[in-house]
């Protein structure tokens, strides 16, 4: 995942000892990963921000039993998900809608930055990526996101998604297979469009 430089490792051991400056450093280091994951899970901006604050406040005053920077990141992502889940679960109950479906739905949004590529090409690229991900279930999307964007290991993904490691591997390999299989169908759809 993130390349740990000697500086990072030094800061990390200071963080474990409860150093303030190192604490601020890792707060800023992880906040956007956490924010992005919270929003991807369907959380509202302010709710996600508050949840992140609570998380760090708690960590500050607790024993920091983290074996590595990766471990800390995984712990933060998992705790954020649990916290958001609890918030939205209690909201759903209080709104008396009952929890018939998942309180949180993972989604993936593609952004193509406008550096050199022109607008028309950007639209096509975005469409192609979206089409690739279209046929995945929300759980498959989340697994893929954690694996390839947040770059977590299977063991950590399994923990976060509350499944076995074996199931996590299967979830991801099935997603990749689905990506492959989806292509011919889409191709046919496109040709039909041209015919009509």
């Amino acid at each position, binding site marked *: 995942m993130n390349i740990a430089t000697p500086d990072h490792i030094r800061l990390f051991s200071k963080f474990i000892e409860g150093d303030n400056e190192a604490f*601020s450093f890792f*707060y*800023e280091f992880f*906040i*956007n990963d956490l*924010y*992005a*994951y919270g*929003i*991807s899970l369907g959380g509202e901006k302010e709710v996600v*921000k508050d949840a*992140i*604050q609570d998380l*760090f*406040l708690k960590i*500050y*005053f607790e024993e920091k039993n983290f074996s590595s920077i990766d471990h800390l990141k995984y712990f933060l992502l998992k705790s954020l998900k649990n916290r958001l889940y609890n918030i939205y679960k209690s909201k759903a109950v209080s709104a008396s809608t009952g929890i018939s479906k998942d309180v949180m739905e993972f989604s*993936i*949004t*593609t*952004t*193509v*930055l406008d*550096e*050199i*590529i022109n607008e028309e*090409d950007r639209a*096509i*690229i975005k469409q*192609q*990526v979206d*089409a*690739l991900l279209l046929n995945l279930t929300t759980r498959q999307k989340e697994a*893929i*996101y954690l694996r*390839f*964007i947040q770059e977590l290991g299977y063991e950590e993904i399994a923990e976060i998604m509350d499944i076995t490691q074996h199931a996590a591997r299967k979830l991801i390999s099935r997603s*990749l297979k689905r*990506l*492959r299989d989806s*292509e011919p169908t889409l191709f046919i759809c496109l040709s039909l469009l041209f015919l009509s």
Partner: protein
Amino acid sequence: MQIEKYKYYSAVDFLKDRDFLKWQLFNSEEDRLFWNSVVKEYPVLESTIKEAIVLYKDNIRLNDFRMSRSEISGSLASLQTQINKKKKRNSRRIVLSISAVAASIAIFIISLHFIFNKENHVQDIATFAQTLPDNNNLYSSDTKLILSENNTVTLNNTESSIEYEGDAIKADNNLILKEESSLYNQLITPYGKRSSITFSDGTKAWVNAGSRLIYPAEFSKEKREIYVDGEIYIEVSEDKKRPFVIKTKQMDISVLGTKFNVSAYEDDKIKNVVLLSGSVSISSNTHNKDKEIILTPNQMYSDLENSYSVENVDASVYILWAQGLYQFESEELGNIITRLERYYGIKIECDTAIAGLKCSGKLDLKDDLNKLLTELSRALPIKYRQNANGSYTINIKS
């Protein structure tokens, strides 16, 4: 998968190819082998594919949700305030050990030329501001934090950070006990310097060059009031019970919890307030005295000598200076030069014949002034020279 179709592909064509995207997204062994075979078949494609990979890495993001830099530093500051509150509750011992450290830190002391009335605790902040002399501290080479008549902290960083946390005041590397400061503190940020300050309630302000801020070390239970001569961008912590009031010579701005920019330099003809979020109410001290003007986000209030206007603007442009950027649109060159003078703390003389030139663009204030003026003179019909005393002169290009 056919390989032939790639023969004449450009880098952007690859980015539109689903197989290429899949390879970049998930980097599976199977995809890697396939793309190796493509390059083997058409070696000319190697550089194009490399280019496409760079384009992909630079431009394509999944779930790219971020908080802005100012949002992050704002939330870090509020987290620290929460931590300090909790610490205070949790343990008396921690506070004591901080005090011990604070006591051992040396503090620079200079004598001040004004009379500080320590007894009069009810003195209004605006009245207090008026009693201070129009000092030329703004041309000093250091930022000054004046805590009391005989306690001034000198900060020589270009960008200083001051935090009021619990019983202590952190100013760059100095740690001072709050009890050493008197009722009102002053932060003087001279030309060429910037600073940021976090008040006791967690409110954070970014202070632009050539600005003076006066505020109490601890806000009272009923209200939060600060006085500004100059420019700040401020993110006010919400506290429904204690409105936050920003006083300037010309107007008062009341808020509950919001983000906005105030530019009220005494020597600028137009003072303005730009609102990012929340809502504020403004009352002028010179005209329409009983009227309160309410701003909604992305509106700018401008206070002229004896009238005012409200217009819709892109508020984010007005706070770019806090990140070291300056964007302007059909702004007169003379005004741009005034801002640069303040920001860099260097005198720039501008020929009146070109002061009215309208310019649009964006400048990176992290560059040095020389580079910046070179860029300006490339875009405009002007030339500049540096004088022996370090100041600059700008003339029309002949």
